[in-house]
């Protein structure tokens, strides 16, 4: 494509620098295809350009990039337990090493001591976000936020397993290329051996890059449009919901918190429910995620609207009704990824048969204050959410997400520096 080379490259640079790169690139790519292949623009086709592989999300900045960048098609969570000897000084050394790995690999460069730097050159929007559990903050000798620690128990729904729960330090990697994620994950775990042990690792996914227009709300494995109301980076409500302010310890300002819940989904049980029942359980249409009270996906849900018989159109215990918050800035910001793992040996389904699926949702949420934003909503959902029939939380954890760092700094410097 020699004729298009110059304009293509400059357009690429322009787009990759901006926060709107995802949506912009899709548009530009369409235009490029239209120009290169006259008359063939509307035809779905293999992407021969590979533009997205080189897409870089800046690592440095006021906030950690994985909180504010669009969720990638793939995600890997790593949770570590600190070794006994990992004191404040060693924690600082470790966070410096991890930050250095992430700062290089997310920008398309190999890590130090990386004999496979070729794996780094297609970051495809790779981000790394680091979180600290209560034990890590204690060892740092810093003030512990009141909400940092395990969530209160939700006995109505919880079936938590230690192997998916907790962890002193957490890393979330997300991006569109699973090879780039795998390589960064390996560099991180290799650099962690003398400081911590890997407690668990969880991987999740959304639709592949290019399958949906960028910005499309994800579908979970129940087939539901999942996350229609969650504030987006750039929204005023996002900033209010996410960023810790004066109420937080000084080291956390500009940071946030992450709640991660591993939610098993009973797909076989869901099979027993017809389309109408499925929509009633959520309060939204399966086809497009619009509220059952009408409109389109992002229109406000009307929880008071009555049908001819005098009942509310949306069941008060439907998921969307129980989860509803009037002020999005006082709620949570969700970032979910599906998981679809191999069936475990000996597992049985709800009917007592050998299990044929092991699927669910890695439900992540950002909020400035877990107790004020997450816990009240989770209490409502634990008591009354029709979806609880088919979902079971089997993992849980809470981490403080420190602010970002500038070049030469490291994540965690606000409490370890």
């Amino acid at each position: 494509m020699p004729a298009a080379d110059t304009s293509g490259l400059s357009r690429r640079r322009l787009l990759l620098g901006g926060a709107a790169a995802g949506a912009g690139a899709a548009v530009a790519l369409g235009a490029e295809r239209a120009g290169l292949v006259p008359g063939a623009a509307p035809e779905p086709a293999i992407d021969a350009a590979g533009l997205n592989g080189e897409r870089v999300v800046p690592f440095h900045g006021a906030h950690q990039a994985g909180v504010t960048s669009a969720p990638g098609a793939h995600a890997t969570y790593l949770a570590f337990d600190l070794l006994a000897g990992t004191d404040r000084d060693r924690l600082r050394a470790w966070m410096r090493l991890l930050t250095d790995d992430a700062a290089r690999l997310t920008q398309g460069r190999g890590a130090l001591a990386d004999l496979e730097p070729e794996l780094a050159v297609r970051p495809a929007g790779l981000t790394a976000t680091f979180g600290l559990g209560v034990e890590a903050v204690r060892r740092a000798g810093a003030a512990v936020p009141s909400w940092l620690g395990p969530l209160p128990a939700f006995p109505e729904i919880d079936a938590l397993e230690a192997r998916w729960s907790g962890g002193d330090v957490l890393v979330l990697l997300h991006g569109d290329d699973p090879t780039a994620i795998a390589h960064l994950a390996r560099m991180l775990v290799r650099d962690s051996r003398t400081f911590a042990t890997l407690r668990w690792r969880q991987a999740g996914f959304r639709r592949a890059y290019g399958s949906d227009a960028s910005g499309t709300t994800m579908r979970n494995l129940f087939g539901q449009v999942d996350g229609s109301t969650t504030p987006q980076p750039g929204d005023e409500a996002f900033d209010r919901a996410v960023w810790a302010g004066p109420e937080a310890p000084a080291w956390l300002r500009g940071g946030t918190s992450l709640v991660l819940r591993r939610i098993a989904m009973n797909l076989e049980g869901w099979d027993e429910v017809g389309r109408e029942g499925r929509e009633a359980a959520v309060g939204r249409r399966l086809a497009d995620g619009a509220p059952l009270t009408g409109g389109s996906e992002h229109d406000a849900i009307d929880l008071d609207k009555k049908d001819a018989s005098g009942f509310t159109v949306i069941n008060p215990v439907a998921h969307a009704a129980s989860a509803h918050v009037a002020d999005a800035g006082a709620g949570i910001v969700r970032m979910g990824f599906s998981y679809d793992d191999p069936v475990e040996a000996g597992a049985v389904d709800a009917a007592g048969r050998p299990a044929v699926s092991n699927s669910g949702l890695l439900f992540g949420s950002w909020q400035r204050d877990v107790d004020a934003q997450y816990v009240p909503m989770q209490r409502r959902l634990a008591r009354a959410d029709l979806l609880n029939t088919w979902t079971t939380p089997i993992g849980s954890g809470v981490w403080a997400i420190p602010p970002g760092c500038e070049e030469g700094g490291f994540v965690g410097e606000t409490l370890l520096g």
Partner: protein
Amino acid sequence: MFTRPRFLATAATVIAAAALAGCSSDAVPSGPELTVTDPWVKTAAPEDMMSAAFGTLTNTTDHDVTVVAATSDVSPEIQLHEVVGGQMQEKDGGLTIPAGASLTLEPGGFHLMLMGIPAAIVAGDEATFTLELSDGETVTFTATAKDFDGANESYGSGMDMSASPEPSEG
């Protein structure tokens, strides 16, 4: 110290020796002849006796630059090595970096060989190195210690460092 460090580092990975330059009233107000980027050193326990340091040396001048010696705060002795045919050997005459070119020190190739280290080098440690050039100038940099299972090249003498438990001969 055998010579006055006179060069202010420009690369972020090279120590900014402002204090040292401050006591050198005749400092040349130009960049260093040699910059060191992405330096790292392999972690080691004292019983390992040795370790190795790596990075990319870039000659910023229009003439050849030769590294003739190296010192460090973590090792009493450093040799300039290369690996030839899987065997380490000392690089006679030092490491020459042609004008405007870069030389990468990496596992399986050129490296700084640390001999007889007295104390553990632990992941995340910062070790200071000074390279001495043939014209008497020095370049100082800080290398981050990284756990790394490779870089176990054996000596040209035939002694396999990775397999033999303890060298028996003196």
